[in-house]
């Protein structure tokens, strides 16, 4: 092995995204200087993407234990929770922001591919996809290109692999213009006893690489994901995904999971063979010995460095019982897949890489796996002084409320996203009871009476204006969306999308958001079982809004005990559960109509939140309410309109509460759910609410074909429907 190149230049270090002091730490721990291959491996493993250098101390704050948790955060590729009936649900969300900024279609497509592999690598059949997307305003051509490309890529990949895409979010704000967010979530299901671990165990067992041949794709992808300005850095590393190959991998790996040939299974994601082998060795408390000359390559002349760091898609590392190689190969080849023995499990804890006879890297697995961590100090961002000083009274009150209301319904952030989700197959696998379009999607669990509810939520604008409050609201809103379909939250996954954490104000945001999430997790008793961190989301030094995405899974004991957001029948009473307020700081109303992202985010009383959700859930279980929908972007007025549009029936409502009408109608006060119910059930629901100390205000009734809010707003339902239905398409077309 070459041990000569001790003099490492700053440029060399920059290429692998390591600092000089990290380099010195590596030398000290190894007792020598690393060679090029080793340096590349350290760079990848110690990147933020794989090593969580900046976020790990903060992530440790998140609660990971709970009564339903089978596999907690950080243990495996994805977390797993017990949903009863001997079944586990495995789920995780991951970002593909940087690749999507450069090549939106392939970037988003391969993002879906990556998260799907995280799920079936545990033996689980993927049963649902969700996605959460952020772009700059559609008035700009580049943003339209990114939007269309990303949606097209998700559609292309997800549809082909046959996993229903049942929910998600799309939001637009200027801060995402150069740096869109593409977060994909996958949910899988598996009998508990069949869960597969990603561990290399048992010296002498065999490592087999399966799936696509290795090319020069994505070398340094993990390190680049930790740099700002993806435009520049990512050009050379775009990958094309092959969803057909992935579908074959899913079926073959699930078939393999039914045998006893497998010791462990690990997908190749960021940092490719390096991270998959290091993680499998480290978690299995073993070593591995890999011969890169055996790795099937797609391009000529690939060197060990490239093979170890390639991020070619659609590859899996199978750790196979010694002697079972031929059986494993037979399964893969039946599915038309290549599999190759590339190495063995060893007992010395060392990751040893050979190129034929020559050892090209030799590093204790734990050194690679244990990246250094940095505990930083945040400082209060200066912009907060200004936004906190915002006086709601300084807003001019609208002249024409009908106009403001229709404009708000047509705002791309609020308008229907049907033009997005109709491109996703959401009904394949015949489990979709409620597809996209509601507060949460509902899937049946075949062979049981139970249902699963899933949602993904995040509001970067809130987190920008109030990191702690925004973090808490993200978790609370996800749980509230589950409550609206009658489900009990079990656990969450999250993706933390932030700017450069080395900046003290960004670090402040990161810390604040995480602490807010921790508070809400504790109050709602929802642990975190998996997640992902995407930092350095900046363009020309400008960070995105701090944007945590929270994906949450809930359980319905019986599919019968569920509801949708759609008004069901004329004459039903409409009631508001939860406290009413005229606060409108931080709202979409202020942002869209007045063009300013400012004000105090509505405060959230987590204790009240828990009680409101309990009342909603219980009333649904008791079969007492016809519809439920939470107030989120656009406030009470928009929530009512969405229920009316979904049900095809209008309403007449008296605006509850005291204060200015715009705040009461469009403010985004938390812990509010609009329900409709037959008059005869009112007394019982009222009593339940009173028991829980939850305000319940009867505000009107479901009726007619107009949307009427006191004396303030009155428009035909058809106009509201048109504005809401076409909002996104019109924003796309208007720009021409």
């Amino acid at each position, binding site marked *: 092995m070459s041990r000569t190149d001790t003099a490492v230049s700053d440029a060399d270090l920059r290429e692998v995204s390591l600092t000089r002091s990290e380099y010195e730490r590596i030398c000290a721990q190894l007792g020598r200087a690393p060679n090029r291959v080793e340096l590349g491996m350290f760079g990848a493993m110690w990147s933020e993407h794989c090593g969580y250098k900046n976020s790990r101390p903060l992530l440790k704050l998140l609660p990971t234990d709970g009564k339903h948790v089978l596999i907690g955060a950080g243990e495996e590729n994805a977390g797993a929770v017990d949903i009863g009936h001997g079944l586990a649900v495995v789920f995780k969300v991951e970002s593909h922001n940087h690749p999507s900024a*450069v090549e939106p279609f392939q970037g988003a497509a391969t993002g879906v591919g990556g998260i799907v592999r995280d799920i079936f690598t545990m033996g689980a059949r993927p049963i649902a996809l969700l996605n959460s997307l952020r772009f700059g305003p559609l008035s700009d051509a580049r943003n339209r290109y990114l939007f269309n490309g990303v949606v097209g890529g998700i559609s292309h990949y997800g549809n082909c692999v046959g996993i229903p895409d049942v929910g998600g979010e799309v939001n637009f704000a200027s801060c995402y213009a150069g740096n869109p967010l593409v977060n994909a979530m996958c949910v899988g299901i598996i009998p508990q006893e069949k869960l597969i671990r990603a561990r290399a165990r048992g010296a002498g067992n065999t490592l087999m690489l399966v799936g696509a041949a290795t*090319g020069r*794709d994505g070398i340094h992808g993990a390190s680049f994901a930790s740099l700002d300005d993806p435009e520049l850095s990512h050009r050379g590393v775009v990958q094309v995904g092959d969803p057909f190959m992935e579908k074959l991998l899913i079926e073959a790996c699930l078939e393999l999971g039914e045998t006893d040939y497998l010791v462990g299974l690990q997908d190749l994601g960021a940092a490719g063979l390096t991270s998959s082998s290091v993680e499998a060795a480290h978690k299995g408390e073993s070593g591995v010995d890999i011969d890169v000359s055996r790795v099937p390559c797609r391009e000529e002349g690939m060197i060990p460095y490239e093979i170890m760091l390639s991020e070619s898609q659609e590859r899996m590392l199978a750790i196979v019982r010694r002697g079972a190689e031929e059986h494993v190969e037979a399964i893969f080849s039946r599915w038309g897949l290549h599999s190759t023995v590339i190495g063995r499990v060893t007992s010395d804890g060392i990751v040893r890489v050979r190129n034929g006879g020559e050892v090209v890297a030799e590093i204790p697995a734990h050194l690679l796996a244990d990246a250094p961590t940095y505990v930083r100090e945040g400082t209060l961002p200066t912009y907060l002084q200004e936004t906190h000083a915002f006086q709601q009274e300084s807003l001019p009150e609208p002249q024409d409320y009908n106009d403001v209301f229709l404009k708000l319904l047509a705002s791309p952030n609020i308008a229907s996203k049907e033009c997005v989700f109709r491109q996703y197959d959401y009904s394949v696998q015949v489990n979709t009871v409620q597809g996209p379009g509601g507060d949460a999607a509902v899937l049946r669990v075949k062979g049981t009476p139970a249902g699963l509810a899933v949602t993904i939520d995040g509001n970067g604008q809130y987190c920008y204006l109030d990191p702690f409050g925004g973090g808490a609201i993200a978790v609370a809103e996800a749980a509230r969306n589950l409550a609206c379909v009658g489900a009990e939250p079990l656990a969450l996954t999250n993706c933390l999308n932030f700017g450069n954490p080395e900046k003290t104000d960004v670090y402040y945001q990161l810390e604040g958001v995480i602490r807010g999430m921790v508070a809400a997790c504790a109050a709602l008793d929802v642990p975190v079982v998996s997640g992902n961190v995407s930092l350095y989301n900046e363009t020309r030094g400008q960070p995105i809004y701090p944007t945590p995405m929270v994906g949450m899974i809930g359980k319905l004991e019986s599919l019968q005990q569920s509801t949708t957001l759609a008004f069901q029948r004329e004459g039903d009473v409409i009631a508001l559960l939860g406290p009413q307020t005229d606060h409108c700081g931080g709202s979409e109303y202020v942002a869209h109509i007045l063009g300013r992202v400012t004000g105090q985010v509505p405060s959230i009383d987590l204790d009240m939140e828990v009680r409101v959700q309990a009342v909603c859930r219980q009333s649904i279980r008791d079969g007492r309410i016809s519809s439920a929908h939470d107030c989120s972007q656009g406030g009470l007025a928009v929530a009512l309109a969405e229920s009316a549009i979904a049900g095809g029936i209008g309403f007449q409502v008296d605006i509850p509460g005291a204060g200015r009408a715009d705040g009461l109608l469009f403010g985004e006060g938390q812990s509010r759910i609009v329900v409709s119910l037959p008059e005869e059930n009112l007394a019982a629901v009222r009593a339940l609410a009173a028991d829980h100390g939850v305000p319940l205000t009867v505000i009107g009734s479901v009726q007619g074909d107009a949307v009427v809010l006191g004396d303030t707003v009155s428009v035909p339902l058809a106009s509201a429907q048109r504005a809401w239905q076409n909002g996104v398409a019109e924003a796309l077309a208007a720009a021409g």
Partner: protein
Amino acid sequence: MTKARIYVTYKSTVLDPQGNAIQTALHHLGFADVESVRMGKYLEVELHTDDTSRAQEEVEAMCQQLLANPVIESYRFDLETVQ
């Protein structure tokens, strides 16, 4: 009029899943001679001009702006003056 024939293909380093699948299919059909298949797009664009150098410039611009994605694709084209 000028007719442009434009060929857009993945760069040689980029994975071409379609090409690979077609290659396998051709082998299955018994075409054992097939060494490699790459799949691309073919466009015929008719331009309302007889000025070849102008057409050249325009088609070049179209390829760069819309027809090819420079991050993963390359293109070439030829021009023919037609009636």
